[in-house]
């Protein structure tokens, strides 16, 4: 069995998630080759074959050309699986490669399963086992689901020849909004999720944060709804935190949120829904209405 692993490179740097692809291939017990649109000055610590195209010439985000480069490597390697990270790069590019090959795509794989792959569904509450029905398949793996494997060594470089522009013109990057709060330094974070119900209830969550000597955090929907500013957002597109205590109030636990806080030392979740995915990583799940439980807890803590 053979895999072609598609590494990631952004703003002149090889992304660490590239090594999770090797962790996945290791679990699969598959041979590997890698493809990277990157730079010779940023090679992965990997001793296998690396198809390398120069990002300075090909663009970091130019999916039409990257697709062609991948198809060229697929032609040479004849892999069973073409594997991406399920990221803004991977989920954008993978379906293009799959469509060109008319190959099955299995998105956001979290584990290997008997004869197929395990993926999450229903906002992470349920699982599906999916089996490709085509000889080749395209996979995207969930960030953080597979171990980082850094084998070491220097890759045997193979050049790619595909060239040309694409339908998109990449204008540039816009930096993340400046953070007025550094949640990474907080020892206690009390975060509000959609379960708090409305903007007017945010002070109730803030009050618990204050009583515990911590900072207010928030999940994405709460930030999108403008109940709380983006500088409080915890998760893939916000801040990654690891406080001594994380209290998740009315947060169901979308994977993007979990990725940003699962390394917290101790997690207490308050949720009406006993099956909410946050329960999978919480040390304590309090099944209750946030607006009833939190004020009662704050009163007792403050005393």
């Amino acid at each position, binding site marked *: 069995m053979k895999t072609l692993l598609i590494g990631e490179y952004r703003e002149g740097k090889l992304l660490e998630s590239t090594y999770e692809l090797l962790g996945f291939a290791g679990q699969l017990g598959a041979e590997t080759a890698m493809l990277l649109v990157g730079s010779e000055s940023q090679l992965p610590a990997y001793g296998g074959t690396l198809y390398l195209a120069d990002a300075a010439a090909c663009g970091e985000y130019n999916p039409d050309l990257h697709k062609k480069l991948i198809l060229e490597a697929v032609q040479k390697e004849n892999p069973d699986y073409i594997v991406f990270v399920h990221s803004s790069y991977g989920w954008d590019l993978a379906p293009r490669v799959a*469509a060109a090959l008319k190959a*099955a*795509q299995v*998105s956001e794989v979290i584990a290997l399963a008997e004869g197929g792959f395990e993926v999450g569904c229903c906002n992470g*509450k*349920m699982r599906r086992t999916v089996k490709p*029905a085509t000889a080749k398949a395209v996979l995207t793996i969930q960030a953080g689901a597979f171990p980082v494997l850094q084998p070491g060594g220097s890759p045997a470089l193979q050049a790619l020849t595909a060239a040309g522009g694409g339908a998109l013109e990449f204008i540039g990057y816009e930096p*993340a909004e400046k953070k007025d709060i550094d949640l990474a330094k907080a020892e206690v974070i009390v975060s509000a999720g959609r379960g708090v119900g409305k903007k007017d209830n945010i002070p109730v969550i803030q009050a618990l944060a204050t009583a515990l000597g911590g900072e207010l955090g928030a999940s994405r929907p709460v930030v999108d709804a403008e109940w709380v500013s983006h500088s409080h957002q915890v998760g893939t*597109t916000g801040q990654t935190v690891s406080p001594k205590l994380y209290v998740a109030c009315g947060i169901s636990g979308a994977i993007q949120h979990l990725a940003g806080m699962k390394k917290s030392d101790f997690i207490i979740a308050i949720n009406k829904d006993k099956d909410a995915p946050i329960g999978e990583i919480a040390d*304590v799940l309090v099944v209750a209405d946030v607006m009833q439980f939190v004020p009662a807890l704050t009163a007792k803590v403050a005393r």
Partner: protein
Amino acid sequence: MKLLVCIKQVPDLESRFKPDAAGVWYNETDLAFRMNEYDEYAVEQAVQLREKLGEGCELTVLSIGPDRVVEAIKKSLAMGCDNAAHVQDQAASGKDPWQIASIIAAYAKDKGFDIIFTGMQSQDRGSAQVGVTVAEQLGLACTTTIVGFDYDNGAITAKRELEGGIKGVVKLKIPALVTCQLGLNVPRYPTLPNIMKAKKKEIVAIPVADLLAEEPLAITASFHPPAKKGGGIVLEGDIADLVDKVIAILKDKTAVLR
């Protein structure tokens, strides 16, 4: 200018999910359905463009599924879409993303849409494949996960959301397809007059057999709850008791309370 927005109806994600008889998807009994959240942003963006371009612009909303999806279609019409296509399919939930994309592409291929909007993924299946695959099948320019959209003079400038809050700015000429991320805009609530007006808008029903010519490429072998990892304590009951228990745990397990 012709615009298309593709929407899916999904269950309320707060629901409890049980496998269906075949054990490959959820049992729909007792589930309340509504528009996929990502698609609400797609509809809003399409309607905003429709309003900006004014007369001579036509916005169609498409949904695939059983009769219940007409509710989501009606909401889109009340938000400002001009007309609708309902691809009637009792078995839509059993189709893989390749088949769903093929149905949309077959519908759109001779209609000359300039811009197609989709959500970046569905909340229930979450494959994030359908939009991009439609673009590939139709040979359209495509970008994904947009949190910013501007159209001017035949070109879209979109902001893609990347990891860590960074954004990537891209420009693409129409015809094009964009997949919409949460936070792109603020989806409107349909007003009562617009709900009334929407009742007069046309919904064309198309049997799925007229559009589907593809076999699935991936098969769902099972649908099941995650394996319980254990370790976590689940507390239920009276609020006052819960508070006492949590205070005790905080004192015992963390240095936060003493």
